[in-house]
């Protein structure tokens, strides 16, 4: 066990956050699209289900996911049936758990962005023959850059910092599911405050570079207002 060494856990954290962000930008924009543009039956119930992950304490959510994804849970059984391997305590497992627990951080900003797109340009796209799908990719997405940036920032950083859920589902296996936030937590718990500072600084730097990248991508946005 190498609790002290950073690179391993940090690399896993980064991979996890990147995977979660990519999955959630796709899944989140799909859900947000349905919620904004389509008639969804029992919309309030669907919205609440999406928001549930953040209203539960992480360790509790982790506990429920442990049961659901475990050998007795519906999801875990189905997964084992298909892939013949367990989901718990694997990298794939923590990605799935992470996707669940960050879902609202992607859906909410995207919903807000989609709702603000000028109705007229959507109508124009339809008149010009674009299907709903094509309109989504060619008009809605490029006009929601600020929303995508907000979603990416919240999901990525939250996943970097999360550990209640990940710990529970992943089991903190070094080199596989032990992420940087667990290492910081250990440092604080065992009174190695100095190590904790250093690790926190590293996480802050990662968040800083991520923001720089996102802001650079988002700068292209045509309608940022300078006053």
């Amino acid at each position, binding site marked *: 066990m190498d609790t002290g060494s950073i690179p391993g856990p940090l690399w896993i954290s980064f991979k996890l956050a990147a995977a979660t962000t990519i999955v959630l930008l796709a899944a989140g924009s799909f859900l947000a699209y349905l919620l904004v543009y389509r008639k969804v039956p029992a919309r309030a119930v669907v919205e609440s289900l999406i928001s549930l992950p953040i209203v539960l304490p992480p360790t509790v959510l982790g506990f429920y996911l442990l049961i659901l994804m475990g050998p007795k849970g519906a999801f875990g059984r189905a997964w084992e049936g298909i892939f013949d391997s367990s989901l718990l305590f694997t990298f794939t497992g923590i990605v799935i758990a992470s996707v669940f627990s960050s879902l609202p951080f992607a859906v909410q900003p995207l919903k807000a962005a989609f709702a603000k797109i000028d109705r007229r340009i959507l*109508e*124009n*796209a339809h*008149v010009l023959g674009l299907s709903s799908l094509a309109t989504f990719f*060619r008009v809605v997405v490029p006009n929601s850059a600020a929303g995508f940036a907000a979603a990416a920032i919240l999901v990525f950083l939250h996943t970097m910092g999360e550990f209640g859920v990940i710990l529970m589902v992943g089991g903190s296996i070094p080199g596989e599911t032990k992420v940087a936030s667990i290492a910081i937590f250990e440092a604080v718990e065992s009174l190695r405050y100095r190590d904790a500072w250093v690790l926190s600084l590293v996480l802050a730097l990662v968040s800083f570079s991520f923001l720089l990248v996102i802001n650079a991508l988002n700068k292209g946005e*045509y309608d940022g207002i300078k006053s």
Partner: protein
Amino acid sequence: MALRAEIRKKLNHFTLDVSLACAGGRILSLVGPSGSGKTTILRIIAGLDAPDKGTITCGEESWVNTGTGTFLPTQKRRLAMVFQDFALFPHLSVFKNVCFAARDRSLAETLMKRFGIWHLKDTRPQSISGGERQRTAICQALAREPRVLLMDEPFSALDPVTRRKLRMAVAEMKRELEIPIIHVTHDIREALFLGDEIVPVVSGKIFHKWLLQFMLTTRGEGLCPSDLTAREDQEDIELEIYDMRKEYKR
């Protein structure tokens, strides 16, 4: 291939109730006071609004039939529309806007050159002038090679010289394209020049007398070829309009 529409729809302050037909290669000009329902007619034909009752057919194809519940989605009507408050895509350059639904990029280029906006091709629509934006919207619609063309006050933001040029261009295209074109305008000269038929819409109904009233009010502005004061019956008015058209078309 003709476009036929019989439409009824309750609006805020009156009910729209019109029946129109426009054959391929012909232009139907809608005129009428502000707020009389012209834009709404185009929106219903485009499938952006649904009529309360009515049918719309394009050639053999049924687009809307409230009796049978038919409603062909906008995307499948293969039409193009120049919106009154042109809705260009802010994330694309002028050229990409024109190419947005074009099968043929060289057509887009030809159109843009013809309409005098080729030098703006790499600019975003937010940083061009109102008239330049309007021309971009017209090019975008034409580049699509539609089966039906709807234009809502397409030249309103243009100076008379440019307007004249564009009007000529559209008149030429009418012959090449052989599609029904419905066109809303406030410029009676434009209606006289472009329209094969002029349909005045007042408070949601077709009302031929409006044109007469209009002639009377604007007489002082050199628009009236002869005195229309006394006559009020529709046939006469239509005759008169016919004469006017001949004169203005030169």
